[in-house]
């Protein structure tokens, strides 16, 4: 291979480094107005009246809109469309928009908001999901008794029998926190009314242009072909620029269509944190039974996830959790129940990991705790129970269509980190500063699985001068998709990467290929690009064969030319091949469409072949804990991930470094402070993410077991890198301190005292440090 499996430079790097790439907030159009949103002051309130007259009277204000002005539905959503663009009768969380204004300047728009008079009737709120499930709790959505947004069950074997056959039974409760994506670029969008046509074009920091278009169609009451969504460069997303961007784009579009002028809307950081969805906090109850030797017999799991005010991706997030909740381990008897529950908290949705970081923290901690009870090294417990070729998962899926490399990645991580030596070395320490080492591993289903339709497209278009466009329905989110897709197109056509230009994702130019989520782009979109390029190559081949008078098998493609293997002097350049094909009137533009292999799911029992392939990863963390202050430093992370095939080893490593950084934040620092529905940490002075000085050495090790389905054998890397970091760190901290913390994050207070104090802070209404 010439281009694939090589560390190609990112195709979008130069523009970004030179500051030339245009992000959502950089866009500007003639006569553009600025929009601002007024948000609810209460987490739960009935809107009695809205008086916009004074705001409208302000010179320079061109429109003031409320839910009453929305031509289509005022709600949208991928699974359950109950999220409000603007709150109609009831505001369900403090991020809900109530009214909005467009004016000549942002300051005027803000001033207009100050002049809107809203009368509210405050309603009783519910902020604890367990309480929200109880009878008599305030209901968020009339059609959802018990505030249940999602409930998934999984039944395998007979769990009671499994516990009866166990020598040891352990019950533990774990808890994870509300987490903010913290992308560097807050949400931004510009909506431009189409001239000469009905409809609107929207540009912005949009993770999923097609999801956005679908929401807009519903809200604006326009046909899909009347809405064009064009993605700008993205300053990060991590799953976070889906629904919140659909809402922003819809608002901008409503204002634009009302005024007939382009309208730009950009959230401040505070607005972004207040309104944008977050990663679900989970409360997890695990009960595990095992034999004396450590063989897992049964697990019973009950999980409650805080969905916040709207459904968003909760049904899917919790579904991934139910599939993977027992981890990469053979457990004959399993019962899992997971509930996603509405509350008047900030809503929660997609975030890198998507239901896996929470359960992996719990299940990996649990395995450590079980090992300790049994007097077995945690590593041994994993070796004893870990998936092997042909293992059967909790959903009854036999893992036999791909290389099950769990133990391979574990062994490699153990070896590279000197885990066992250090584990012994750190076993008996006394000083003020103590070290610890811990490991965590996971398996992860690739792409959407049985969530729903899984297919995507890409277009490869060769121009008559031999330059190439690649278009894709999946979108660059900063992860390196453009580079990977360009590499695949170049490889398939035997040309250099420089010939390929990747076009921004534009819903008018390419079919809807689903969202850029679930670490599916390389696997799904990569296949689509490969198919498209292969079709073009097939067309070129016809022309080449005539020129070189050879059979297809005799030819080699690469380095911008095609030659006869036996006689390399008989060759033609790529341009010549393109010219010859064009001269014959051939079509050198092709669409590739890739449909995922079949998966199955039985909702009643939670059984089926949930995903068509899986990846495996293991990370080892080494930490040093200040025993007198609880301050924890991560010294090193050894991260081993099987990616099937690294299309670009450098971008794979980039994913690993980034995932570890986010995982480290999840482990030690990050927690959105929300008290009775009000978010207190609205900016990065209070919401701390790791900085460069907090980052340890990261040894990133790529394992390649090519997959039968993926392009060149490539699978997935985006999310697995983040999901195992926190449990590895927690395990290392437990070794260092001799005490396990069962709640994330392991901040100063939890490590020193075993509990957080933040709730007290807000209960007592005390500020400061």
């Amino acid at each position, binding site marked *: 291979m010439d281009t694939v499996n090589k560390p190609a430079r990112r195709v979008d790097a130069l523009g970004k480094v030179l500051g030339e790439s245009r992000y959502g907030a950089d866009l500007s159009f003639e006569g553009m107005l600025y929009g601002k949103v007024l948000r609810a002051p209460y987490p739960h309130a009935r809107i009695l009246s809205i008086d916009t007259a004074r705001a409208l009277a302000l010179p320079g204000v061109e429109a003031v809109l409320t839910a009453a002005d929305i031509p289509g539905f005022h709600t949208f959503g991928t699974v359950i469309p109950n999220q409000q663009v603007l709150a109609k009768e009831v505001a369900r969380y403090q991020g809900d928009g109530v009214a909005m204004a467009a004016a000549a300047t942002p300051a005027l728009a803000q001033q207009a908001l100050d002049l809107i008079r809203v009368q509210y009737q405050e309603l009783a709120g519910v902020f604890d999901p367990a309480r929200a499930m109880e009878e008599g709790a305030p209901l968020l959505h009339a059609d959802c008794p018990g505030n249940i947004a999602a409930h998934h069950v999984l039944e395998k074997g007979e769990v009671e029998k499994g516990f009866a056959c166990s020598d040891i039974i352990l019950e533990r409760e774990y808890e994870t926190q509300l987490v903010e994506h913290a992308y560097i670029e807050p949400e931004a969008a510009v909506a431009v009314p189409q001239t000469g046509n009905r409809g609107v074009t929207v540009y912005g920091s949009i993770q999923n242009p097609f999801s956005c278009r679908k929401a807009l169609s519903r809200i604006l009451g326009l046909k899909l072909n009347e809405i064009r969504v064009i993605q700008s460069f993205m300053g990060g997303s991590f799953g976070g620029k889906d629904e919140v961007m659909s809402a922003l784009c819809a608002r901008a579009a409503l204002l634009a269509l009302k005024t007939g002028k382009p309208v730009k809307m950009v959230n401040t950081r505070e607005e972004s944190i207040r309104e944008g969805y977050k990663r679900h906090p989970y409360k997890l109850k695990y009960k595990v039974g095992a034999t004396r030797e450590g063989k897992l017999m049964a697990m019973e799991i009950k999980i409650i996830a805080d969905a916040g005010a709207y459904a968003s991706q909760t049904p899917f997030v919790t579904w991934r959790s139910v599939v993977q909740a027992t981890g990469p381990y053979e457990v004959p008897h399993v019962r899992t129940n997971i509930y996603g529950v509405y509350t008047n908290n900030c809503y929660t949705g997609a975030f890198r990991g998507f239901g896996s970081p929470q359960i992996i923290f719990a299940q990996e901690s649990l395995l450590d705790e079980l090992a300790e009870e049994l007097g077995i090294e945690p590593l041994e417990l994993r070796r004893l129970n870990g998936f092997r070729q042909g293992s059967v998962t909790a959903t009854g899926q036999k893992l036999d269509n791909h290389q099950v490399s769990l133990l391979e990645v574990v062994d490699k991580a153990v070896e590279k980190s000197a885990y066992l030596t250090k584990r012994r070395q750190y076993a008996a320490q006394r000083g003020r500063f103590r070290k610890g080492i811990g490991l965590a591993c996971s398996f992860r289903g690739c792409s959407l699985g049985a969530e729903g339709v899984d297919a995507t497209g890409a277009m490869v278009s060769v121009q008559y001068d031999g330059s190439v466009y690649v278009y894709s329905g999946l979108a660059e989110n900063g992860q390196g998709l453009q580079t990977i897709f360009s590499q695949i197109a170049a490889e398939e056509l035997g040309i250099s990467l420089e010939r390929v230009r990747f076009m921004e994702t534009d819903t008018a130019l390419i079919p809807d290929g689903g969202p850029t989520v679930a670490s599916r782009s390389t696997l799904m979109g990569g296949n689509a690009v490969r198919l498209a390029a292969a079709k073009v190559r097939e067309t070129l081949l016809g022309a080449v064969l005539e020129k070189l008078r050879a059979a297809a098998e005799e030819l080699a493609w690469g380095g911008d030319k095609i030659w006869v293997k036996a006689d390399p002097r008989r060759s033609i350049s790529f341009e010549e091949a393109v010219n010859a094909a064009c001269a014959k009137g051939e079509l050198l533009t092709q669409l590739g469409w890739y449909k995922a292999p079949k998966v199955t799911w039985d909702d009643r029992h939670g059984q089926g072949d949930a995903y068509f392939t899986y990846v495996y990863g293991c990370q080892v963390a080494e930490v040093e804990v200040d025993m007198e202050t609880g301050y924890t430093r991560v010294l090193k992370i050894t991260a081993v991930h099987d990616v099937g095939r690294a299309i670009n080893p450098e971008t794979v490593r980039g994913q690993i470094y980034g995932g570890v950084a986010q995982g480290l934040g999840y482990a030690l620092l990050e927690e959105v402070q929300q008290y009775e529905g009000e978010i207190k940490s609205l900016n990065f002075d209070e919401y701390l993410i790791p900085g460069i000085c907090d980052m340890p050495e990261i040894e990133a090790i790529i394992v390649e077991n090519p997959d039968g389905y993926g392009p060149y054998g490539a699978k997935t890397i985006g999310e697995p890198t983040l999901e195992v970091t926190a449990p590895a760190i927690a395990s290392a901290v437990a070794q260092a301190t001799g005490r396990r913390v069962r709640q994330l994050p392991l901040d100063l207070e939890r490590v*020193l005292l075993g509990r957080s104090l933040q709730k007290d802070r807000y209960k007592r209404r005390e500020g400061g440090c």
Partner: protein
Amino acid sequence: MLEFNLYRPGTLQEALKLLAEFKSSARVLAGGTDLLISLGSREREDVKNIIDITSLRELDFIREEDSRLRLGPLTVHAQIADSPHIRQGAGLLAAAAAAIGSPQIRNRGTIGGNIVNAAVCADTVPPLLALGATVKLERLGESRWLPLEEFITGPNRTGLEADEMLTEIAFAKLPATAGWGFMRLARREAMAIARMNVAVILDRDSRGRVVSACIAPGAVLASPARIPAAENILLGQCPDEERIHQAGQAVAAAMTAAGRRWSTPYKEPAIIALTERAIKQALEVEWR
């Protein structure tokens, strides 16, 4: 959005004149790393005039005279951290300045701003307190000197009058026999305000007995102060592990006596440890 008039006086006299005219509707802008943030919030709508003093080079100096160090308020943290005069004569202040924020903040934020902003967690304040610093306050045609602990009266509160400016900070250099310690605890390595900090200066006689002690913690009391109860435990002693621990406990006791807050269950053990470490650092014994 806030609108205000921006003035850039060329001399201190001009700046003081502007202050005399505008009084409480004016704010002095030094590095702006505190002021600009508070201006962004809506509480500051009373501020109509900003007096940018960054070009007043006469307020930017580090001078050593006799055995005293004199600092202009516009001296930025990076200068303090790097100054040979300060590293040699007031090492704890250099250490505190080096720990602030990030390179950007240290290149921009001034010691004057740190003092006048008077955050409980301000990192230069405990070292300055331990050094016995005094501050010079000037208004048009008049000036006065105040000890730092009298100047800062509470969280974000000082004795600065509306028409006054802070124009100098002065203190005696540490004698060669003195040792110092500065410890700071934050939630991450950089760009994180201190949860607590503590500055210690100990001078010992030839037999190792402590003849003078200053212990000044930050983010422990509502307004910064030395803790005599802790200092007294060390005075006249060759401090051993036990005494050092008691001194730490005395700081914690002073904190809890002032009231228990949400953070007290954590801060109580942690400040004991930090104080012990700062004392050990001052005594030049291993503290890890």
